C-alpha cells in the first residue's frame, strides 16, 4: 500500500490525498510551531492561503501541505520546533511575550553593539521557519518558457473556466493557470458540478490548462510569471483575467490560533473531499451565505454539528481546542467541541488585480463579487472573457476584531501588538505594517490585510492612512530556484578538438566562454617546438567573418582604420577596431579574397560584438553587405615553426612558396584532403600558417598534422606557451596589456592607422586626442631578474606604471615584459625599478626584430 514518511513515521495514503489530509487522518494535529511564540498551529484554511501547514517535502522547505498531492515514498518533515514540532522546548517563548515587545528588532541589543551579533545567531536558529538544504546537490533550476497568448486566466473555478471558455470560443488563444487542478478542493455539490461543466466547455473550446501552476504577479506588459511544477512560464498576454476567488475571513479572538479552529471551506474540504472529519463535535459560526452548505457537508460526513450565529468571544483549550464561547443573539453560550468552523464572509484574493492598475486586467467571480452565486460567477466570467470590465462589488463588512488573538498568525502579531504600535505613534496602515510585520509573512496579507486596514480605520487614522497596504509580487511564495529559472546557465563553448586535447592530457582553461588548452604538460618544450621544430595550436576560437556584397569594401573602409584599398586580393593585413572614442576595441586580421569579398578575424572574445557592430554600421549606412559569422562553423589550426612548410608539403600538393602564399597573405590549399584557407601571419614569430577549415573536418586535419609532424618532433602548444611566444614578438593581449582608454599611439600601433583616409570610426576622436599631452604609453621591458606580472614600476620610489605581461624567454635572451609607464617631468623614463629589479625600456619585438624568421 502506498505510504509516505512523516518525521520517520509511515503514513498510509488514500486516493486524492494531499500531505495535509493524509497526515490529519493519521492523527497529526500540530503541523507547525509559530514563528516567534512557538505556539502549536494546525490545519486552518486548506486553500493554500495561510502558513500553518508549511512543511519540508523531499528536502524542499516551505511547501504547503494542503496544496501538495502526496506521493508514495515521499519524505515529509515538519520543519519548526526544537527538538520537534510535537515537543518544542522553545514553546517557553510563548510565556516570554513581555520580553519580545512589538518592534523588538528596533529596541533590543542596540548596545553594546556586539550583543546583536551574538543574539542574531540564537534568534535565527529559534525562529519557526524551515532550513535551506545547504548540504547535498543544489536544487535543480527550472527552465523558463516564454509564452505569448491572447488571454491568460488565473484561477480554474467557475468564473475562470467560464471566462476562458468564452474567450476561446470567441477565437482567442487562452491559457488558464490553476494552483491545483480545477475543482480538486471542492466537496461534491452544485459548485463542483458547475466546475466540471465549465471545465468540459473550456477544454472543448481549446483552452490550454496549466495545473499546479501559480501566478506570482502581474508585471507591465502585462507579463504574468507562472510557477509550474516543472518550469517557469513567462506569459506575455494581450489581457489578463483574474479569477483567483476569495479567501474566507480570518477570525480574531482569544485562542483563534488553536489547532481545531478552522476556516469553513477548509473543514468542508477535509470532510467532503478527503473523507477525513476535522473533529467529532463541531460548532459552525454562521455569518455568511455559504455557512449552511458547509455545515451540511460536515453533517453528511458524520460530524455532530452545532450551528450558531454571533461573535466568538474565545476559543478555549490549551494546545488544542476543547470548546468555544460565543455571544449569540440569545446571549453568551459556551459549547464543548473539538472543531470550531468559521464562516465569517469572504475577502477577495485581489492582490493581482490591485498591482495591475494600468494594464488590461479584469476580474471575474468572487475576486470582484465576493460571495457571488454560481450563476453570477459564470456571468462575470463570460463578461470578462468577452473583454468587458465588470465593476467590483463592495465585499461584506469585515468581522470585528475580538478582545485578543492573533491578527497575523504568520508573524505572531496580536491585537495587543497593533495597539502597542499605535500607542508608540505609528498611525497608518503602511507604517504599522512595517513596524509590526503584519502582512509581511508567507500569507502576504491574505488573512490579515483587511484586519490591519480596519484596525487603523477604527482608531480614527486619516483616510489616507487606513487603506489596504500596497499589493506587490510575489502573491504566492516562489522559491529562489524558481526566480532564477532559465538564468543559471553557464555557457561553455568547446572547439571540435576538445576531446583530442583531453586525450593528450591538456589542462583546459576557461577563456571567455571558450575552453582552451593551457598546456599539454611541458610549456618549455612547447615553446622550443615552435622555435626549433614544428608545432600546432587549436585557434578555432578566433572570431571569423566572411564579408561580401556590393558594398563590402565601403563598409570596411568606413569602419576600420586601415586602407582597405591597399590590401590586394591574396594579401592580408593587421586590423585594428577602434570605437567612437578612438580607443582600441578589438584587433584581428583582414584578408582580401578577391571579387570584393573579405575574410576578417577578431579576438576569441570579441566575435559577437564585432558582428553586431558591423551589422549595425552596414544597416545605418544603408549598405548592401552580406556578413556571415563563421566563428561556429570554422575551425582553425595554426601550424608554426621552422618546419611548418615542410609539414604542410608532406600533406599537400599545393604550392606553398611565398609566391603562392605571401607574407602577410593567404591562399586556398588542400591539406590531408581538407580544404583550408591558409593565412600566413606572425603572431608567434616563426614561419606559420593558420589553416581555417570546416569545423567538421578539424579532427582529421589535426590527426594528420600530428601524425606527419612526428618526423620533425611535432608537439602541440597551448595558451601558456602562446603567452611567451607572442610576448617575444611584443604583441599585446587586448584586455591584459590594454586599458579601456587606450588609443593606438599609447600602444605603439600608429602604423595600423591611416589618418589620410577620409573617415573611419574614431578618426575625429584621434584628431582631437592628438593635441592632448601624451601621458602614458605601453613599452617593452627587459629585467635583470624574474619579474612579476602586475608589479609596480617606480622611478625614484614613485610609482609611474606597472608590468602587464612578463616571461623569462630563452629565445629573447632573458626576462622580458610589457608595461605601462607615465611621463616623468615631460619625459618617459628609460630605466625603472620593479620590486628589487631593474627594468629597462627596450624596443620590441624582443625576438627576431626584423621578422626574418616569419617571412621565411
Amino acid at each position, binding site marked *: 500500500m502506498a505510504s509516505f514518511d512523516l518525521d520517520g513515521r509511515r503514513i498510509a495514503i488514500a486516493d486524492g490525498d494531499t500531505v495535509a489530509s493524509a497526515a490529519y487522518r493519521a492523527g497529526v494535529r500540530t503541523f507547525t510551531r509559530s514563528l516567534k511564540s512557538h505556539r502549536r498551529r494546525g490545519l486552518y484554511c486548506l486553500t493554500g492561503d495561510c502558513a500553518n501547514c508549511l512543511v519540508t517535502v523531499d528536502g524542499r522547505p516551505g511547501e504547503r501541505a494542503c496544496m501538495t498531492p502526496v506521493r508514495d515514498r515521499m519524505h515529509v518533515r515538519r520543519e519548526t520546533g526544537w527538538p520537534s514540532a510535537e515537543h518544542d522546548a522553545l514553546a517557553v517563548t510563548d510565556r516570554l511575550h513581555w520580553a519580545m515587545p512589538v518592534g523588538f528588532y528596533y529596541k533590543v541589543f542596540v548596545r553594546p553593539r556586539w550583543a546583536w551579533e551574538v543574539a542574531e545567531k540564537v534568534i535565527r536558529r529559534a525562529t519557526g521557519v524551515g532550513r535551506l538544504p545547504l548540504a547535498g546537490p543544489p536544487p535543480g533550476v527550472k527552465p523558463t518558457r*516564454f509564452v505569448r497568448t491572447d488571454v491568460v486566466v488565473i484561477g480554474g473555478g467557475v468564473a475562470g473556466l467560464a471566462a476562458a471558455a468564452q474567450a476561446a470560443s470567441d477565437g482567442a488563444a487562452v491559457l488558464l493557470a490553476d494552483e491545483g487542478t480545477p475543482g480538486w478542493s471542492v466537496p461534491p455539490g452544485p459548485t463542483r458540478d458547475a466546475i466540471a461543466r465549465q471545465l468540459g466547455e473550456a477544454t472543448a473550446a481549446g483552452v490550454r490548462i496549466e495545473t499546479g501552476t501559480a501566478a506570482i504577479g502581474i508585471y507591465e506588459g502585462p507579463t504574468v510569471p507562472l510557477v509550474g511544477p516543472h518550469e517557469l512560464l513567462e506569459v506575455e498576454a494581450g489581457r489578463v483575467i483574474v479569477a483567483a476567488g476569495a479567501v474566507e475571513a480570518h477570525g480574531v479572538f482569544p485562542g483563534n490560533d488553536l489547532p481545531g479552529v478552522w476556516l469553513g471551506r477548509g473543514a468542508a474540504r477535509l470532510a467532503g473531499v478527503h473523507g477525513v472529519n476535522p473533529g467529532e463535535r463541531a460548532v459552525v459560526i454562521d455569518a455568511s451565505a455559504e455557512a449552511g452548505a458547509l455545515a451540511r457537508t460536515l453533517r453528511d460526513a458524520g460530524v455532530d454539528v452545532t450551528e450558531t450565529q454571533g461573535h466568538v468571544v474565545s476559543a478555549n483549550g490549551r494546545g488544542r481546542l476543547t470548546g468555544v464561547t460565543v455571544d449569540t443573539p440569545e446571549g453568551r453560550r459556551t459549547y464543548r467541541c473539538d472543531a470550531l468552523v468559521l464562516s465569517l464572509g469572504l475577502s477577495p484574493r485581489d492582490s493581482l488585480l490591485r498591482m495591475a492598475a494600468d494594464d488590461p486586467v479584469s476580474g471575474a467571480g468572487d475576486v470582484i463579487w465576493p460571495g457571488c452565486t454560481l450563476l453570477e460567477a459564470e456571468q462575470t466570467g463570460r463578461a470578462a472573457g468577452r473583454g468587458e470590465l465588470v465593476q467590483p462589488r463592495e465585499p461584506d463588512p469585515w468581522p470585528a476584531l475580538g478582545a485578543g488573538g492573533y491578527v497575523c498568525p504568520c508573524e505572531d502579531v496580536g491585537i495587543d501588538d497593533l495597539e502597542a504600535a499605535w500607542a508608540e505613534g505609528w498611525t497608518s496602515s503602511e507604517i504599522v505594517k512595517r513596524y509590526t510585520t503584519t502582512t509581511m509573512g508567507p500569507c502576504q496579507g491574505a488573512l490579515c490585510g483587511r484586519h490591519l486596514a480596519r484596525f487603523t480605520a477604527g482608531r480614527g487614522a486619516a483616510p489616507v492612512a487606513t487603506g489596504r497596504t500596497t499589493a506587490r509580487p510575489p502573491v504566492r511564495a516562489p522559491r529562489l530556484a524558481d526566480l532564477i529559472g532559465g538564468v543559471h546557465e553557464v555557457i561553455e563553448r568547446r572547439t571540435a578538438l576538445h576531446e583530442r586535447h583531453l586525450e593528450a592530457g591538456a589542462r583546459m582553461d576557461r577563456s571567455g566562454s571558450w575552453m582552451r588548452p593551457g598546456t599539454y604538460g611541458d610549456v618549455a618544450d612547447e615553446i622550443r617546438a615552435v622555435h626549433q621544430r614544428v608545432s600546432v595550436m587549436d585557434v578555432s576560437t578566433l572570431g571569423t567573418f566572411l564579408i561580401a556584397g556590393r558594398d563590402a569594401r565601403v563598409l570596411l573602409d568606413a569602419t576600420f582604420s586601415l586602407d582597405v584599398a591597399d590590401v590586394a586580393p591574396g594579401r592580408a593585413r593587421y586590423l585594428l577596431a577602434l570605437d567612437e572614442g578612438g580607443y582600441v576595441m578589438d584587433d584581428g586580421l583582414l584578408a582580401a579574397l578577391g571579387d570584393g569579398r573579405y575574410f576578417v578575424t577578431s579576438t576569441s572574445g570579441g566575435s559577437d560584438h564585432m558582428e553586431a557592430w558591423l551589422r549595425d554600421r552596414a544597416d545605418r549606412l544603408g549598405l548592401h553587405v552580406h556578413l556571415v559569422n563563421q566563428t561556429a562553423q570554422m575551425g582553425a589550426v595554426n601550424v608554426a615553426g621552422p618546419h611548418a612548410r615542410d609539414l604542410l608539403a608532406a600533406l599537400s600538393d599545393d604550392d606553398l612558396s611565398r609566391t603562392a602564399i605571401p607574407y602577410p597573405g593567404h591562399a586556398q590549399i588542400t591539406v590531408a584532403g581538407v580544404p583550408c584557407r591558409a593565412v600566413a601571419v606572425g603572431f608567434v614569430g616563426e614561419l606559420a600558417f593558420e589553416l581555417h577549415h570546416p569545423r567538421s573536418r578539424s579532427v582529421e586535419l589535426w590527426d594528420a598534422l600530428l601524425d606527419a609532424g612526428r618526423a620533425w618532433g611535432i608537439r602541440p602548444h597551448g595558451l601558456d606557451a602562446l603567452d611567451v611566444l607572442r610576448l617575444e614578438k611584443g604583441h599585446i593581449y587586448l584586455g591584459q596589456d590594454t586599458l579601456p582608454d587606450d588609443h593606438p599611439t599609447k600602444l605603439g600601433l600608429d602604423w595600423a592607422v591611416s589618418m589620410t583616409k577620409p573617415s573611419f570610426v574614431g578618426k*575625429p576622436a584621434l584628431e582631437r586626442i592628438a593635441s592632448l599631452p601624451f601621458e602614458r604609453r605601453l613599452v617593452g621591458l627587459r629585467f635583470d631578474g624574474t619579474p612579476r606580472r602586475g608589479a609596480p614600476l617606480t622611478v625614484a620610489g614613485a610609482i609611474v606604471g606597472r608590468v602587464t605581461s612578463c616571461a623569462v624567454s630563452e629565445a629573447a635572451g632573458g626576462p622580458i615584459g610589457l608595461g605601462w609607464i607615465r611621463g616623468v617631468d615631460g619625459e618617459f623614463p628609460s630605466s625603472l625599478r620593479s620590486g628589487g629589479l631593474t627594468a629597462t625600456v627596450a624596443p620590441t619585438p624582443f625576438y627576431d626584430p626584423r621578422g626574418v624568421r616569419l617571412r621565411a
Partner: protein
Amino acid sequence: MSLLIPCPTCGDRPFTEFTFGGELRPLEASEVHADFERVYLRDNVAGVQPERWFHASGCRRWTTVHRDTTTNRVED
C-alpha cells in the same frame, strides 16, 4: 518587465532576445566639439525616443524602435 520589440523579420519578440544598442545617434558630426557630444552625451529622454535593438538571439538584424521610456510601449 515586459517589452516586445518589433523585429522586421521575426515580428514582435520578447526584449530578452535582443541586445540594446542605445539611443539612435548620428553616425558622424561635422566638427570636433559636435563629435565629442555625439560620442559622449545622451539625451536620456523621459518619453518616446528612437533607439537601436539587435536581435541577437534571433535573426541577428538591427532595427530602430520608438519606445516610450516611461511606459515601455513601442510605437508602430
